[in-house]
């Protein structure tokens, strides 16, 4: 069966510091991968998605970036964090076969920028 991991689970960072959040998927090949952000009490905002290694599409311009160095690894980064980057970050995957419309989510990372 497929599983998705995210780490760290919680992160507290000062403004201006770098960021690296990691997401890995097990039990599937060539998944679509997604990064979402959820502000407190709000819905989900799609940040990036990827259909393959090195292929990244950005949905919202911001100071965040994403990379996919391996088939089942998706990384969210920032060179300098802003206060507004605080939130809950969710990674998701979907199959590229039939059923691509169904996404499965990881446990998330709580990021607090101070």
């Amino acid at each position, binding site marked *: 069966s497929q599983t998705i991991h995210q780490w760290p689970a919680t992160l507290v960072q000062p403004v201006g510091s770098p960021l690296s959040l990691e997401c890995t998927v097990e039990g599937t090949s060539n998944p679509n991968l997604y990064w979402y952000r959820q502000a407190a009490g709000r819905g*989900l905002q799609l940040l990036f998605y990827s259909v393959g290694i090195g292929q990244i599409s950005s949905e919202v311009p911001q100071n965040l970036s994403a990379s996919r160095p391996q088939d089942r690894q998706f990384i969210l980064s920032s060179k300098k964090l802003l206060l507004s980057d605080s939130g809950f970050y969710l990674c998701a995957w979907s199959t590229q076969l039939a059923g691509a419309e169904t996404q499965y989510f990881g446990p998330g990372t709580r990021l607090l920028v101070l």
Partner: protein
Amino acid sequence: AQTVTQSQPEMSVQEAETVTLSCTYDTSENNYYLFWYKQPPSRQMILVIRQEAYKQQNATENRFSVNFQKAAKSFSLKISDSQLGDTAMYFCAFSNTDKLIFGTGTRLQVFP
């Protein structure tokens, strides 16, 4: 552009009772998929149920069922025999590609 609207910010229900969460959407597409996701206090998003638009039969998953009205563009979630563990945020979502569009969510509180 497609949109998803959840008009009930908060709902409450007593344990063992039935509750219905509303969702409407707007699209010009004919083939698409609809979902309900649950987000408990742990904040992990859990898929509850999914519906293919080309299927007339309403999807069911144990105590969870949907009322899919394609012409009205309505997709409500019915939770029967509510349990304390059903307390969570519930998000309705739409997809006709490999991207999901989410509603703003309904916070459901189940009381003993």
